[in-house]
């Protein structure tokens, strides 16, 4: 049954290749990638074997976005189908589903391919090949000079896969990375700590780009939050100029003597004002009487 379907698809593809250039529609607009564009052209021209080679090499590239990865797996699955390699096509679509569990083929895809894709999707579910799911707690504003810890909840982590936190100062070109480490007491909680020296104190606040990526042993992206083209950001606070009160010291306003003094001052001022207001302001006029002569 399956071999018949493959033969049908291959025959259709070959027929299209002889009449008009084979055209496929990309699922969505994705950032430019040389390997992806080359593979797209090869698929369009019916050069499936070369497309497979291009795509397998392209998938090995680092810093692929989710969309690019999905598109590569989609083309790879399609090319393998055209070549009659259903199992390899299935493998490609499984990877696609791992990276994007809710992915659906574009409506422009040939109906028979859509049917096959639905069947593979159903098989994936039955085989309980569950995709890696990543839930990341966004990093809030960080204090400069202190380490920052990113927390992630990762389910169905594939064997040999790794989760990494990629980061760079906003505006910088390259990302650095640190690995997430699974907490000993949990199978799904992971932490990655950005060291303090990566968050230097400055007079003005600044931003850090970051994204999280789960990749398999072959560095293929299985799941992620953000990517190098659309990173997440968090703000690093500016240097605190006022060092604040000494730890353990009582704030001045909690000192009762301050308020006793204030109370006495207010009482004295009030008394003075009342005295001044109620005191009759009068003057004295001395008179020196001089008299002479005899009446």
């Amino acid at each position: 049954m399956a071999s018949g379907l493959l033969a049908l698809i291959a025959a259709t593809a070959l027929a299209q290749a002889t009449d008009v250039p084979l055209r496929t529609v990309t699922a969505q607009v994705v950032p430019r990638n040389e390997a992806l564009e080359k593979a797209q052209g090869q698929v369009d021209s019916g050069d499936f074997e070369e497309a497979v080679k291009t795509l397998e090499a392209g998938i090995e590239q680092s810093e692929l976005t989710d969309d690019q990865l999905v598109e590569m797996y989609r083309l790879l699955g399609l090319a393998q189908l055209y070549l009659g390699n259903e199992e390899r096509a299935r493998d490609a679509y499984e990877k696609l589903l791992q990276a994007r569990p809710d992915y659906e083929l574009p409506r422009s895809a040939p109906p028979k391919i859509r049917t096959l894709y639905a069947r593979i999707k159903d098989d994936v579910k039955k085989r309980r090949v569950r995709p890696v799911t990543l839930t990341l707690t966004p990093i809030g504003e960080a204090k400069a000079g202190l380490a920052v810890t990113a927390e992630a909840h990762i389910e169905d982590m594939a064997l040999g896969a790794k989760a990494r936190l990629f980061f760079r100062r906003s505006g910088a070109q390259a990302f650095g990375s640190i690995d997430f480490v699974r907490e000993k007491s949990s199978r799904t909680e992971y932490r990655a700590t950005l060291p303090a020296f990566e968050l230097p104190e400055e007079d003005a606040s600044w931003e850090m780009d970051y994204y999280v990526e789960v990749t398999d042993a072959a560095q293929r992206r299985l799941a992620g939050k953000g990517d190098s083209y659309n990173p997440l950001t968090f703000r690093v606070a500016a240097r605190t100029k006022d060092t604040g009160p000494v730890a353990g010291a009582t704030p001045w306003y909690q000192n009762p003597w301050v308020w006793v003094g204030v109370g006495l001052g207010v009482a004295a001022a009030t008394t003075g004002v009342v005295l001044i207001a109620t005191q009759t302001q009068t003057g004295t006029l001395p008179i020196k009487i001089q008299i002479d002569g005899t009446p």
Partner: protein
Amino acid sequence: MTRALPLVLLLSACGPAASGGGVDMQLFVQAGLLDVISGFQVALVKSGSTLDCVAAQKTCIKGQVDATRFVPVKDSKGAQKKALFFPINLVAGTPNTQDVSLDGLSPGKDFAVIVEAVSKDTPARLTGSSCNYVQQISVGQNAAVSAHIETFPTPVTCDVRIDP
């Protein structure tokens, strides 16, 4: 020379006493004033600039201005009066003087101080009078007013006492 000095000092101590270099003054209060004047009535009048001091000194002030123009003053007991009477207590001198004061005055401007010498006889007559303009009375001690009373040859018969 040194032997003659004690002799000179001894001789210089003899003879009449020196006068001190000044003029001896005989200080006394004229007996006539003490016999005639019982005391002085002092009043402070508002709007002093409207008062003709020359005319005011010729007769009793009580009949010359409205009673509302007398500024209330405090006597020694703290009572409010329109005028104060000071029994004669002249200090010997030329002329004879007596220092008095008006206390508890509200600050203000444009006053006249009237000092009237009141006779001892009954009914009391005006023996002499003085009138001084006072531009301003301030809170506290003010500059002293010198009230010079020229006594009349014959006391004037008029209603002298402002505050009986």
